[in-house]
C-alpha cells in the first residue's frame, strides 16, 4: 500500500491540516511505510472475529438527570483566544 502526494493532500484536508509541498513528499513516504507495515494484518483470517473497542468491565453508566452547577462563563472563556459578550469569537464563517 502506498500513499501518493494526492492522497496526502486529501487526508490532510479532511484533518484540517495544511501541508507544504516538501512535507507532502516526506509524508507520502513515511505514511506508506507505516501502512505497509499495517498491511500485515491483511494476512490474518478474521472472519467472524468481533472487533474490540473497549476492554475490561462493561457497565451501565446512567445517572439521575439532575441539574448540577456548571462552570461559570468567565472561567470557560478565560482561555479563549478571542471572546465577546460571553461568547467565543471566530473569524467570518462565510466570505462576503
Amino acid at each position, binding site marked *: 500500500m502506498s500513499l501518493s502526494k494526492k492522497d496526502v493532500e486529501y487526508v490532510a484536508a479532511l484533518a484540517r491540516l495544511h501541508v507544504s509541498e516538501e512535507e507532502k513528499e516526506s509524508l507520502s513516504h513515511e*505514511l506508506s*511505510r507505516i501502512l505497509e507495515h499495517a498491511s500485515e494484518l491483511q494476512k490474518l483470517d478474521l472472519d467472524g472475529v468481533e472487533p474490540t473497542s473497549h476492554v475490561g468491565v462493561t457497565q451501565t453508566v446512567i445517572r439521575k438527570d439532575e441539574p448540577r452547577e456548571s462552570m461559570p462563563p468567565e472561567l470557560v472563556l478565560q482561555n479563549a483566544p478571542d471572546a465577546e459578550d460571553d461568547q467565543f469569537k471566530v473569524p467570518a464563517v462565510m466570505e462576503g
Partner: protein
Amino acid sequence: MVELGIGIRQLHDALQRRELTATDLAEDSIARIREWDKDVQAFLKVTEDDARQRAKVLSGQAPQGLLEGIPFALKDNMTTRGVETTCGSKILSGYIPPYSAAVTEKLEAQGGNLVGKLNMDEFAMGSSTENSGYFPTRNPWDLTVVPGGSSGGSAAAVAAGMVAFALGSDTGGSIRQPASYCGVVGLKPTYGRVSRYGLVSYASSLDQIGPITNTVEDAAIVLQAIAGHDQRDSTSVRLEVPDFVSALSGDIRGLKIGLPKEYLDLGMDESMRAVFDTAVNQLRALGASIHEVTLPHTAYALSAYYLIAPAEASSNLARYDGVRYGFRAKDADNLLDMYNKTRSQGFGTEVKRRILIGTYALSSGYYDAYYKRAQQVRTLIRRDFEEAFEEVDLIISPTAPTTAFKLGEKTSDPLTMYLSDIYTIPVNLAGLPAISVPCGFISGLPAGLQMIGKMFDEATVLRAAHAYEKATDWTSRRPQIAKGGRA
C-alpha cells in the same frame, strides 16, 4: 540534603518523628531541580512558590496520610487548576486549566505537594520525549541518551531524585518504557482502574494513568491513592480497590509465571537476553514456577496499535482548532483557514503524522480494511492473554528490547522508534496491568523487567515485583546526579 528516593514510607516516618518537615522536603526538591534540571530538562514548569506555600502549611502539623508533605510532579497531560498544562504541545501553550484532573485532586487532597509539570512527547506520541514541542529531556544516567517516552520527564525526574514520585500515562508503554530506561519503577494499572478525568486524551480506549516511583512499595502507595471509580470518567470501574500495600508479602512461592515464547523471538539483543534470563532464574529461586506460554498474535500487535491509536487520536485531537483555548494562528482569512493554520502551526511533525494515518484509517473506503481489522486483531490479542492466564498467574518479559538509545538516533525513522514499544503495546490492547521493575544494567544503562497481570490483579503484579526487588538491589542503584555528584 534529604534523599527523596529513599521511599515514601521512610520520608513519612521521618516527618512523623519530626526529623524533617514538609518544608525541608520541598526545599530539597526545588534545590535539586535548580541544580540538575538545566541538564536533564525534565520539567516544563516548576511551581515552587505554590509548593513552598503548601509546605509551610503542612509543616505545622504531624502528617496524617503517607503522602502528606511528599513532593511529587505530574506529566503535563494531567490538568492542574490554575497551572499551565501544555501536553508538551505548542498548541496548548498558555492554557490554564479551569479544573484539576481527578488524580491531581486526589493526590492534593491526601497532602501531596505538587512541585511542577513534567516534559513529555507532544500529546504522549513518542518513545523518547524528543517529540516534545518544547525541548528534549535527557536520561539522568547518561545525558547523551533519551529517557524514553512518552513519560520521559516523569521517569527522569524520579531517577534524578528531584521528586519522590511522579505520575505518567501509558497508551502503548509510555510509563513502563521510560521507567525501564531510567532505572525506576513504572506501573500501568488495568484500564479503568484510575479515572482519566482531566487527562488530555490521546487514544481513549488505551490511555491509563499510573505511578512512576523509586520502589515497588511506593508504586503500591501511589496507586492506592489514585485508584477508584469516578463518575466523571464513565470508563472508570465500580470495583472495590484492594489494599495494594498489604499485598506486598515478599512471598511468591508457588506463583506460576509465564514466558511468552513469541516475545523471546522478537529481536531482543543478546545482552538484554542475558539480563532477562538472570531475572527468570532469580524468580525461580524465590519459589515461582516458570512455564512457557504462547501469545500467537504478538507479531500483529504493533500494526494494530499503530492504526487504533492514531485513529482515536485523529478524533480526539479534532478539538484543537483555535476556538476555545490554546494557540490560534494569526492572519486567518476565514474560519476554515483559521482551523488549518492553527493546527498546522500548533502541532508537531509526529502528531501530524499520526493524525493523518488515523484520518486515513477511518476514511471512507478504508475503514474496514484498516480500523475494523485492527480492532478484530485486538480481540485476538486479548484472547491470547486470556488463554495464557488460564495456565499462569503472571507473564514476564523485558520491558523493552534494548536499553535507552542516543538522542537523535531514531528520530529520522518513525517505524524504528515504534519498535521500542513492542513488548508493552500488546498489554494496552488487552487492557491489562503491568509493571516495569529495574532488573540490571547493560553498559551502565538500566534494563527493566516487565510483569503483566490478569485484569484488575495489580496486587499480584506488585507482590511479584516487590519480592523480586527485595531479592535484588537494582532499585536502590541511583545515577550520580541523584547522589549529588556529577554525572
